[in-house]
């Protein structure tokens, strides 16, 4: 799947890849639309479509970071996010008063993020003991273990039903659970996470990580501790995913084993791959597509005379087609089209002379 590999970011400013070009106009337009979306979109679109897509996109971004720049396809990212959601429910307030500790949000949220980062780091420490394709196997097993654990554990994780009534707090006189503030909350974290990834991949740490992705043995021979860098990458990815998991819990008002089941775990991979593992924006494109499908495909399927159940078939087929025909996702498709257009244009000028 070499095609999905992003190029190297450069630390020295040397133009190693053409990606270093200035931000394209499409990105500015996209950013402006997102910023002023509440002026045009309904509450439903704002929260259930864009809020959800931004959250899923951020979780998938943490996967993209590990896979694209670290060469480690980790399926544990949804689990880390869910873990943070669980921690917020357990430490803060929820409908399950006998379990929840009732800490104020300004204590519960940072503590939940910290614990989730710890969880992600530990999972990473287990997964990086072996490299390559083994990562998928081990992280999937860890994700499954956590899912079964939450389902069976009543005393801490609330068993099969999990926690309901987990709500975003009210502070600075703003009710963060109402649509517009909640949307901005999601947008803010997605933007921060995206910015962090873009920054880190050009910092020495990110550069070292990409070196390890391409050539771990050489990196060790240059004095880099390969294992430590990989574990640190898991910690960083967990830090991206954890707040998104808390937002997801607030969005749904609940957290239950179903949130961290095998299905959602695979969905995050699907989102990242379909969007494109090559660049940090890919997961967000994948997430928007996924959410739109999730919401509107049901109607479309029913209209076609198929049961709404066939949604999974649609997702599976879409994923298969992407992996088979455009391994670098929609982003890759788009970039190839652009390059072709540029090539045709160049050929046109050359021919005109």
């Amino acid at each position, binding site marked *: 799947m070499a095609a999905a590999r992003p*190029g*190297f970011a*450069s*630390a*020295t*400013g*040397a*133009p*190693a*890849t053409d990606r270093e070009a200035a931000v394209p106009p499409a990105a500015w337009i996209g950013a402006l639309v997102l910023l002023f979306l509440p002026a045009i979109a309904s509450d439903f679109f704002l929260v259930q479509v864009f809020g959800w897509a931004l959250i899923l996109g951020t979780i998938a971004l943490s996967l993209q970071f590990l896979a694209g720049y670290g060469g480690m396809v980790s399926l544990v990212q949804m689990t880390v996010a869910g873990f943070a959601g669980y921690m917020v429910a357990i430490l803060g307030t929820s409908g399950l008063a006998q379990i929840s500790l009732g800490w104020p949000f300004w204590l519960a949220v940072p503590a939940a993020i910290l614990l989730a980062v710890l969880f992600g780091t530990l999972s990473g420490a287990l997964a990086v003991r072996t490299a390559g394709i083994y990562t998928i196997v081990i992280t999937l097993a860890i994700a499954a273990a956590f899912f079964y654990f939450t389902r069976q554990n009543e005393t801490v994780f609330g068993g099969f039903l999990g926690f309901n009534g987990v709500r975003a707090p009210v502070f600075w006189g703003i009710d963060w659970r109402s649509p517009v503030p909640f949307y901005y909350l999601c947008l803010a974290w997605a933007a921060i996470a995206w910015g962090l990834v873009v*920054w*880190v991949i*050009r*910092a*020495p*740490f990110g*550069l*070292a990580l990409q*070196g390890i992705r*391409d*050539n771990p*043995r*050489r*990196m*060790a*021979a*240059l*004095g*880099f*501790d*390969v294992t*430590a*860098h990989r574990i*640190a990458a898991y910690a960083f990815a967990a830090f991206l995913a954890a707040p998104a998991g808390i937002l997801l819990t607030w969005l749904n008002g609940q957290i239950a084993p179903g949130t961290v089941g095998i299905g959602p775990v695979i969905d995050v991979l699907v989102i990242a791959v379909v969007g494109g593992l090559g660049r940090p924006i890919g997961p967000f494109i994948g997430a928007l597509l996924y959410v739109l499908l999730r919401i509107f495909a049901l109607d479309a399927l029913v209209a076609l005379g198929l049961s709404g159940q066939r949604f999974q078939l649609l997702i599976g087929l879409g994923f298969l087609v992407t992996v088979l025909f455009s391994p670098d996702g929609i982003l890759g498709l788009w970039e190839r089209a652009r390059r072709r257009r540029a090539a045709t244009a160049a050929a046109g000028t050359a021919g005109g002379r």
Partner: protein
Amino acid sequence: MATAIAERLSATGTVNALELRGVTKQFGALVALSDVTLSVRPGERRAILGSNGAGKTTLLNCITGDFPASSGTIRFFGEDVTRFPAHERIRRGLRRTYQISLLFGGLSVLDNVYLACLGVSRGRFSLLRPKRDDALLESARTLVHAVHLDAVAERRVAELAHGQQRQLEVALALAGAPRFLLFDEPAAGLSPAERSDLVAILNGLPAHMGFIIIEHDMDVALRVVESVTLMHEGRIFKEGTPEEIEADPEVQELYLGHGHG
């Protein structure tokens, strides 16, 4: 006992740069290295010769920790590094080049060297981007200059000619403050002009920097070293000065007579 000797040596300031005792490496049933004992003084430059499969590259791999030795001890400037992972040995001043280029093709020359400088600096986990006048960047530029690659410093390594990639390999090994270097066939595939360039680079290294060089090309190997070790089937077979080795009839028969084995 070996420990006592090393301690005594380090006390008198004559500790060896490299001290191998009984180093053996097995891959399953295959014995690639068998009971290799070898010492190299600081600043000493030594060639290791031998036919293909004699265990030369395996020996380098054991010294750097790319593959750990199955048994035996390895001391680097008196310190027992036998159980150290590769990166710990590198941070103590050991460096190597690879026979097949293991470079970062998607990165520029300068970035490759920058990574090498970063690997032996303290900023490995830094989240701050380097500034234009960053000290690491400066030393990377100096190294690029030292191996005569200034003209292509900003080019992607994948676009470089073979000879330039070999020169870059040398630059990566010179990053930081190396105390001892291992060169694995640095002249392989080079043109005669590039070879004499390489000899100039190797002879131009500071006198305190010893190295071991594996090289098939006698013209290169014997012009840059003061001692030679001959390996055969995973064992050390003979040691001596370049003149002694060249004059030895047994050596002629076994190795030199066969040209590029």
